[in-house]
């Protein structure tokens, strides 16, 4: 037994030595390729280790801590609370339906825009693209501020609606409601969906679409039978991207409130309840859910969306 362990250990050391040796002095083209891959990925791998893997591991460990502030003991109490406490279940439900609703709406709006951009010659296309991509770099807090300007108690549109309906401005202001949050969020989600969909549209076989047209299909039928199946990977990819981003909503909801979602509650656990263990448990669940969801979705599509 001991001899076997020694032998296994020796083989492992030998294997590591061989790998390192081939990286230092590669003998074949394949080994030279591996060395190049390692060199190219090394900076990111180091970053991933120290700002990704290590914090996640630490967070996972804290989530089982008996103390709310320091890491000691072992308990699953914080996970149990998320399952049994209606307060957390309600937050989970809010988070999921909000992410799903923003996903469906963003995709529904982005598909026709992508279609128009990729299928037709538009004047000033580069200007249109710049305007459409602008919200991509818009911080959630700024998007929230824009909604307040439009739909807040003294917002421009609130004033218009109040004038038209005869109600008070405060009654018609929706900036801090779920509706306001929804508008603010889909505004920044549509360009993300558009980005992926435009890439997919570029690969659509236009000859096949024209074939459908001459065979008697209307433009709508052509979209349904020919275009839609071809953009399916893009649709799934965009859905994954938008849904994941929807789950991670924070800046916008921090300003507008409107809905208590998972990330906002994590912030409250940390800032108001000083409950680091509960926040870690919530963050762990969030991470596992997003990771699992992405892996599951990618299993059924060739969508090019990274985990």
């Amino acid at each position, binding site marked *: 037994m001991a001899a076997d362990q020694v032998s296994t250990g020796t083989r492992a050391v030998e294997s590591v030595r061989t790998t390192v040796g081939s990286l230092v002095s590669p003998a074949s083209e394949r080994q030279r390729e591996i060395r190049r891959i390692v060199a190219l990925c090394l900076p990111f791998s180091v970053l991933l280790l120290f700002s990704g893997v290590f914090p996640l591991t630490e967070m996972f460990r804290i989530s089982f801590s008996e103390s709310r502030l320091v890491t000691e003991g072992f308990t699953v109490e914080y996970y149990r609370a998320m399952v049994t406490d209606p307060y957390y279940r309600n937050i989970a439900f809010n988070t999921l339906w909000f992410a799903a609703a923003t996903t469906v709406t963003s995709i529904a709006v982005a598909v026709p825009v992508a279609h128009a951009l990729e299928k037709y010659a538009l004047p000033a296309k580069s200007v249109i693209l710049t305007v459409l991509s602008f919200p991509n770099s818009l911080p959630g807090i700024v998007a929230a501020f824009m909604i307040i300007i439009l739909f807040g108690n003294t917002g421009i549109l609130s004033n218009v609606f109040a004038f038209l309906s005869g109600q008070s401005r405060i009654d018609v202001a929706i900036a801090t409601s779920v509706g306001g949050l929804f508008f603010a969020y889909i505004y920044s989600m549509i360009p993300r969906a558009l980005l992926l969909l435009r890439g997919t549209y570029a690969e659509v076989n236009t000859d*096949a679409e024209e074939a459908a*047209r*001459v065979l008697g299909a209307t433009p709508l039928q052509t979209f349904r039978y020919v275009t839609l*199946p071809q953009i399916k990977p893009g649709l799934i990819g965009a859905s994954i991207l938008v849904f994941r981003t929807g789950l991670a909503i924070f800046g916008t909801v921090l300003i507008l409130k409107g809905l208590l979602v998972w990330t906002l509650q994590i912030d409250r656990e940390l800032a108001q309840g000083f409950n680091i263990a509960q926040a870690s448990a919530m963050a762990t669940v969030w991470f596992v859910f997003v990771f699992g969801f992405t892996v599951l979705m990618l299993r059924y599509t060739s969508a090019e969306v990274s985990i």
Partner: protein
Amino acid sequence: MSEVSLERVTKRFDSTVAVNDVSIDIDDGEVMGIVGPSGCGKTTALRLVAGFETPTDGTIRYDGDDVTHVPPENRNVGLVFQSYALFNNMSVLKNVTFGPKMHGVGKEERRERAHELLELLDIEELADRNPKTLSGGQQQRVGLARALAIEPHILLLDEPMTGLDAKLKQTLRQELGQLLDDLGVTTLYVTHDQEQAMSMCDRIAVMNEGHLEQIGTPAEIYEEPANEFVAGFIGTANLLDGTVRDGTLSLGFEDVDTPEAVASNGAVTVLVRPDDIPVGSGPIDVEVTNLFYQGEHIQATGELPDGRELTLRLDRSETAVGIGDTISIDFDPESLHIIESTR
């Protein structure tokens, strides 16, 4: 089937005139070819007939009806693409039944029609396959079956054999020619391959830079080209400058009787095909400058006594001829064709 006509059709894209005042009448059941070099406007002409482009000027008619502004889905046109353009999300059978389905044909009838066409094209066994799994030749047959399934007014073939290997191209050419004859479907065949057009089409329209240069039967186009472009594009041509004076054509190194009625004396361009030049005896000496073995024959280039270049066709038996040798040739007045006055 129906008659299709383009009447003085022009298509401009910004400052580019892709099709310039082109008129073509395609008779019922006729196979009309459009040939020309890349960018000559032949594909635009096809797209105008299909309805993907709207003419800037002119009219397109099917059986006398103006369809100029009718969208493609209402024209009942069968189109076979160079890229096949099959629906890869559907089986072969569903590809073929797609058109009839869009035209409101019942499920049983469209399946029956599809199976008949697949059988006719000898691809019945591929009915349940995905087009992606088929060879180029098989995909092209599926594309043809799909186009014919709607019983189109006109069948449009856009470079349908580009991308296929030479042997398959030859086989498909024969089969397609036979099929179009049998079905009697009015066809517009667009290709840059003049050989394909010559062998498959009843008439050919030669286009260049948006203009229609000549329209006629393959024999007319080959034997009596309207101008230097047509002569040079269809087949191999020797174009020689000459002068006509009182019934005599002077080529500089040789005088011959004018081969046809020439209205007036003066400078002319003369076409003589390589296969119309007898080699081995004659009054004109040509120095061979290059030889190209082409399997069935040998193509030679030679220098005439006045330094001009001439293309000749040698039998395979002439293998003794080498570069630098001098061979004798003759010009038969009957094989010379005066195609245009140069001034």
